[in-house]
């Protein structure tokens, strides 16, 4: 079948010719798209974590929801732009690298676990640590599978 194999690294995968060629179309527009997307994603994350803040010993639901929903969306996005459609060269940098990369965060996740443990809520910290990891990976898989099914990429795959 003609569809490309999706890359392993959705930010930049130098094994994928189209991604190696990205910079040739203009570094400025590429980095600007990533920066713009990153701002949108980070502001959405900031808004959610401020609105749904958690007590020092509580479960960080806001970051949990941000990271899991971001993972669901990256799974869907990557199927859409690498398997189902041919997207403009700035779509993945803007939405994938920028918006979703800026929206989700590993640093806040790690520090929130540390803070929970430091506050004496070891069990909550470990539950948050493992819960985010499992939910995020399931979410990526779900995003990929549901989008393949919805776009019919699934049928092409088994036929090809």
């Amino acid at each position: 079948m003609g569809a490309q194999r999706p890359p392993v690294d959705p930010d930049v995968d130098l094994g994928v010719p189209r991604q190696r060629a990205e910079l040739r179309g203009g570094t400025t527009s590429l980095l600007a798209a990533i920066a713009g997307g990153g701002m949108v994603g980070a502001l959405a994350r900031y808004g959610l974590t401020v609105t749904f803040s958690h007590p020092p010993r509580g479960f960080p639901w806001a970051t949990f929801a941000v990271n899991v929903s971001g993972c669901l969306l990256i799974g869907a996005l990557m199927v859409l732009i690498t398997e189902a459609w041919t997207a403009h060269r700035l779509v993945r940098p803007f939405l994938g690298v920028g918006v979703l990369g800026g929206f989700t965060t590993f640093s806040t996740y790690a520090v929130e676990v540390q803070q929970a443990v430091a506050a004496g809520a070891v069990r909550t910290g470990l539950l948050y640590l493992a819960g985010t990891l499992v939910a995020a990976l399931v979410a990526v898989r779900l995003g990929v599978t549901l989008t393949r099914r919805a776009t019919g990429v699934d049928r092409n795959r088994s036929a090809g």
Partner: protein
Amino acid sequence: MTVILVALGAAVGAPLRYLVDRAVQARHGSAFPWGTLVVNVIGSLLLGVLIGGAAVGAVPGSLVALLGVGLCGALTTYSTFGYETVRLFEDGARLPALLNAIVSVVAALGAAFVGVTLAETMWA
């Protein structure tokens, strides 16, 4: 004001992740996502220093917004990490996928602890 600082930090953090990821990948050809691992660990260390410093009153809230919520938040990523892990697994690289998940979580958490401790030693 805080909103502007978060946006500014993210406008630097997200492209920085792309450039670091690209530079790390260019140095070796393996499919293992070293680039994302590197940014996630560095970002967790820096955020640990900032949050630890803020707790003892040495780092102002504006700096936490700019460098912590904005820069570190956008520099690090869960979506890229999650996608890479699932893709490795789908490609049959099950051990690398498992290792990526475990090493990322353990290294970032370790970096966060080191960062907070570093801040406490420096400023307390």
